C-alpha cells in the first residue's frame, strides 16, 4: 500500500519558514478530531528549523535543517494502549483523548519532536496533516507552501520508496538512533559533515594563488581533494566531523604548505601565504 514519506532537500532550504508558519496557521486555534487538538498559541515547533553556520568569516555558509516528526517505523513514542499509534500509511499519531496527561510521551522522542501543551495537558506533534490528506489533499501544509520544492510529500509503497531513496541518495537524519524515520533528507552533508577552507596567496607577489592543489588526508589516506579558484580559495567539503586531518596545499614554484587540524566543525584556516621555493 501507499505510505506517507516526506523528502526534505537541505540544499534547497533557505529558512523562509513558510513551513513552520503554515504549521502554526493550520494547528493553532484549530481542532481536527480525532487526530489533533489545537496547538497552543505560542511555543511549539511542530516543524522545527535548525540553523547552523558553517565555517568562519569570510568563508562561511549557512545550512538549515527542517525537522518535523520523523514518523518513524520503529517509533520509540508508540504506546501499547493506543495513546500513540502507527497507522498503516506510516503516520504516527498521538491520540488527543487517550494521551491526555501523558507528559512522559514528550521524553520518549529522541528527536525532540514532541511538545507539551500545558493548557490542554497533552503531548503534541506534527500529524503529517492527516486530516487534510483524508479530505483529499495531495500535499501537507509544509510541502504545499515550500516555494523552492525543498519539501516533497511522496505517497508510495515501500518498493517504490526504496527505489527513490537509492536514486536520489536520501538518508535519515541521525540514522544511528535506529528508529527508521519516514522523513528522509537530501544533501544532508550540508548539516552533518564539515568542510575545511582557506584563502591562498603568494607571499612574494601578493596575488591570489589560483589553481593550487589541495589534499586532505586522514591517517595517510586521501579523503578530500580540491583546487583554489581565481580568488585563491578552496573548500573541501563532506568530511567527517571530529576527524584529525592533514591539509596540504601545493603550487608550482612554491614550497608546499601543510597543516594538521581537528575538524570539530567546519573550519576556515584563514590566509595561507605560500613561500617561493
Amino acid at each position, binding site marked *: 500500500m501507499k505510505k506517507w514519506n516526506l523528502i526534505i532537500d537541505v540544499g534547497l532550504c*533557505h529558512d523562509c519558514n513558510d513551513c513552520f*508558519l503554515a504549521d*502554526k496557521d493550520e494547528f493553532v486555534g*484549530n481542532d481536527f478530531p480525532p487526530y489533533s487538538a489545537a496547538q497552543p498559541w505560542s511555543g511549539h515547533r511542530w516543524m522545527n528549523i535548525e540553523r547552523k553556520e558553517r565555517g568562519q568569516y569570510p568563508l562561511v555558509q*549557512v545550512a538549515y535543517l527542517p525537522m518535523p516528526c520523523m514518523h518513524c517505523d520503529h517509533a520509540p513514542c508508540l504506546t501499547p494502549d493506543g495513546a500513540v499509534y502507527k497507522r498503516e500509511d506510516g503516520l504516527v499519531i498521538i491520540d488527543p483523548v487517550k494521551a491526555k496527561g501523558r507528559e512522559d510521551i514528550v521524553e520518549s522522542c529522541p528527536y525532540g519532536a514532541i511538545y507539551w501543551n500545558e493548557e490542554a495537558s497533552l503531548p503534541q506533534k506534527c500529524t503529517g496533516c492527516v486530516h487534510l490528506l483524508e479530505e483529499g489533499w495531495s500535499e501537507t*501544509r509544509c510541502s504545499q507552501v515550500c516555494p523552492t520544492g525543498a519539501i516533497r510529500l511522496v505517497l508510495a509503497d515501500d518498493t517504490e520508496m526504496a527505489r527513490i531513496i537509492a536514486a536520489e541518495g536520501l538518508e535519515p537524519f541521525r540514522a544511528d538512533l535506529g528508529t527508521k524515520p519516514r522523513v528522509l533528507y537530501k544533501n544532508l552533508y550540508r548539516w552533518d559533515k564539515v568542510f575545511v577552507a582557506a584563502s591562498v596567496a603568494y607571499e612574494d607577489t601578493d596575488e*591570489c594563488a589560483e589553481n593550487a592543489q589541495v589534499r586532505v588526508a586522514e591517517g595517510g589516506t586521501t579523503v578530500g581533494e580540491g583546487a583554489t579558484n*581565481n580568488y585563491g580559495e578552496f573548500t573541501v567539503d563532506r568530511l567527517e566531523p571530529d576527524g584529525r586531518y592533514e591539509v596540504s596545499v601545493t603550487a608550482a614554484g612554491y614550497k608546499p604548505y601543510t597543516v594538521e587540524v581537528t575538524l570539530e566543525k567546519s573550519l576556515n584556516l584563514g590566509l595561507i601565504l605560500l613561500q617561493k621555493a
Partner: protein
Amino acid sequence: MAEDRAPNGRSGETTLVRDISFCGVPENGSNASMVDVKDGRIIRIRPMHYDWKYDPERDMNPWKMEVRGSIFEPSMKTLIPPYSIAYKKRVYSPARIRYPMKRVDWDPQGAPGSTGPGGRNTQNRGKSKYVRISWDEALDTIVFEMNRIKETYGPTALLYQCDQHGENKVVQACHGAGRRLLPLWGGYTLQIRQPDSWEGWWWGSKHFWGCEPVGQGRQSNLLYDVAKNCELLLFWGCDQETTPWGWQGQLPSRLSYWYTELGIKQIYVCPDLNYAAAVHADRWIPVLPNTDAALYLAITYWWFKHGTYDKEYLQTHAVGVEAFEAYVMGEEDGIPKTPEWAAPICGVSARVIKALAEEWASKRTSVVIGNGGPGIRGPYATEPARLQNICLAMQGLGKPGVNQVKMIEWGLFDFPDQYAQPKPLRVPNLRTAYTGGHPSDTNHPSLPKTYVPKAILEGECDWWGCESETAPREDQFVHRFYPAEGCSRIHAVWTDSPSWITCWNSGNDYVRAMQHPDIEFMWAQHPWLENDALLADIILPVNTKLEEDDIAGDIFSGQYNLLFPERKCIEPLGESYSDYEIVCMLADRLGLLEEYTGGRSIPDLIKLGYETSRCADLISWEELNEKGYFVVPTAEGWEDEPAGFQRFYEDPGSDPLTTPTGLLEFEATGLKEHFPDDPERPPVPKWVAQGVSHEETVGTERSKKYPLLVISNHPRWSVHSQHEDITWLREIGTCKITGPDGYQYHPVWLHPSTAQKRGIEQGDVVSVYNERGTVLGAAYVTERIMPEVIYMDHGAKWDPIEPGVIDRGGAINTIVPRHTTSKNAVGHAVSGFLAEVEKTDLDELKRKYPDAFEKPFHPCAGPGLEACIMGGE
C-alpha cells in the same frame, strides 16, 4: 483535481482569493492567497493555485525557459511569503485598535502651545496614554480642528502624510483617501515621499543613463537573458531572499537556485552574508558599508590600466569618459584609484579587487540589485550607483548578458520596460478605481518627507526637486521653499498607515518635530496602535483588508498575472472601518460627500476597477465573479522581447537614453550645468568620504567616538514596520531574541571579535548609540558580518523609553543620519553610518526610567495596546 487546489468542500469551509501583499500602491498587487473561512473565522491562509479553475494549456499559455539543457517553469501555485501565511495573527493582533481613541492629556479647547491640565501638551506626544471616545466625538473634533486651522492659518497649515507602506488595497486604499477630499476642502500641504527605495539610482543614475522614473536599468526580459547569456552574476548589496517577499513572493528564490544549476557563478558583494548569500553564494566579497564607490573605482582603474574594457563601445555610446579616466588615473587629484588605494577604505584586499576586476572583464557579467540593502540608501548613494553603472558601461552595457538586473518590482509602476519576467498578454491595472494616493501625485505646496522635521523644527528650508516620487530628472534642478510663497507653516498633521519613525531619516528628529508646540493637532488612522500612531492626538480604527470587499491584481509574482474581486473574509473587528469609509464620513461632515464620491458606491468602484482593468474584453464580469479570479495568459512571442539595454547597445541613435545627450554620461551634463561645484554629487562620480552633509566613514573625527559602521537592510521578518506583532514570526531565531527581562529584543549582528572586544555575548541586551540617540537590541554574534560592522535591520516596532532619545523596540532609524543623501539630493541615508555598541546595564536603565520599564508588554507580540490605554484594556 486534488483538494489542496480547491475549497475544502467537505469541511464546510469557504475559500476566498485575496491579495495579501504590502506595498500599498494599486499597480503593485501580488501574493494572491486562498483564505479558508468557517463560522466567521479565518481557518487558514495558503498559496493560490492558478489551475484551480483554469486549464493551463488551454487558458494560460504557460511559459517556460529552456536553456543549457535545463527547463524552468513557473509554479502552478503562488509562492507566498511568510507574512502572508501568518497574516491571521496580524488581523487578530493584540495591537489592533478597535475603537476611536483620544490622547488623554490633549484638550482641543486648549490654546496653541498650552501645557498642563486643559492644555494641548504637545510635548507629551509619545508618552501619553489614550482613552476611548465615540466616533461622533472623534469626527466632530477632527472637523472642528480642521476648520479652526483653516480659518487661523489657511488650509496649507495641514500636512497630509499619506504615502507609507501598508496593505495592498484598491477601492479601500490604505493611504491617501484624503487626497481627493482636501482640494475640495480648500487645499493642504502634501508630504512627498522621496524615492526611498531607489535613492542612489534616482538622484545619481538618472544623470548617467536616464531610465525614468526611478533610475534603475531597463529590465525587459532579463530573467531569460541572464539564463541564456550570463557567466557571472554580481549580487551587489542584494538580498533576494528578503527584500522582494512582501512585494512579489519567492520566485527570485527559485530562480537563484536555477541559475546555479545552469552553472552561472554568483558572487555577493555586501558587508553581511545576507540570507541569499548564505545559500546561493559561490563567493562572498565582504565590503565595508557604503564604501562601494572606492571598490568600483579601483576596478575601473584596473581596466583602464590594462585596457580590459570595451573602448569602441564607449566611443559610440558614452560621453565624458576622458574626464572620468583623468579622475580615476589620478591626473585630476594626484591620487590614482588603485586597488591598493581602495583596499583600506573598502576592506577588500588589493589582490581580491584585482581578481574581481579580471574576472568581471573576462566573463559576461550582469550586476544584480534588489533595492534596500547596504549599497544604495547610504550617505552619498549617488556615487556608488553611478560608478556601478559605469562599470557595466565599460563592459558594453546592453550586450547579451551585460545588464543591471533587478530581483524585485518586476513590472514597477506599470512600465513595460520593467518586465523582467516573461511578459503577460495584459497587465491588469486598477488605478481608475483606486481611492488612495499615488507616488506620482503632486500638490502645491509640498514638502519632501526627509525635510519634515527640519521644516517644523527650524521653521524654514529649501531644497531641489522632489515634486513627486516619479518626477523626471529635470525636476532635480527646480528650487523649492518652505513655507512656499503665500502658504502657511504647518500646524496640523493628518497621517495614515504611519511608519515615519521606523523607516525614515533620524526618526528621533521626527518625534521632536511632532512634539513641537506649533503642531497643534495630529490625527492618525491605522488598524494597529504602533509607531507614529503613538504620537497622535486622535486615532481612528481601520480594518484590515480581510475585513473589506475590494478588487485586486497580482502583477509582481513573475509567474502569471491575476485579476480578482475580493470578498471580505470576516466582519470588521470592533468599530473599525476602511480608510475610504472614514474619509467618506469626514467628507459627509464637511458637506462634501457627494462631490467626494462622485456618487459611486464601493460596489460601483469595484466594478469600475474591473471595467478599466484592461482585462474586461478577456473575461466577463459574471464569469470573473463565478470563477473568483482570472489568469492572464502569457503573451505570444515573449521570448523575442528585447532584453534590457539591448536596443541601445545595438544602435544608440535609434533608441537614445533620456539623458541630455541621449548617451551614457560619465560626466553628467545636467549636474555640470546646474551644480558644477557640488563636491557631494560632482558631475563626474567620485569617492566622497565626508562633506558638509555627512561624516559617517571610518577615519573621520567622528569615528574616534563612534567607530562601528552600521548597515541596515530591509527586514527579513517584516515589511518595513509591518508584521512586527505576528507572534509566530517572533519565534524565529533571527527575528527576535528574548532578553533576561522577558522582552523580545531586535537582533544586532556582531562579529565575534567585535563582541569580544566589548565583553558582549550572544543574547546580551546591547545599546547601539551615537549622538542622535540610543537603540536597544540583543546581540546576535555571528560569522556572517564583517568585523567592526554591525547589522540591524530597520522596521522594528518603536517602543520609546524616552521618546526622541532612547528606544527599546529596536527602531534603528531613530538614530540614522538626519541629513539627506547629499546637499542637493534630498534622499534619506539610512544605512552605512557610524555608531558604537555596548552591553546594556538594564538595572541602571530601569532605575533611570522606571515608568517605561513598568509598562506592560505582550511577552510574545511586543508592545501592544494595554500599555497605552488608560487603566489597561
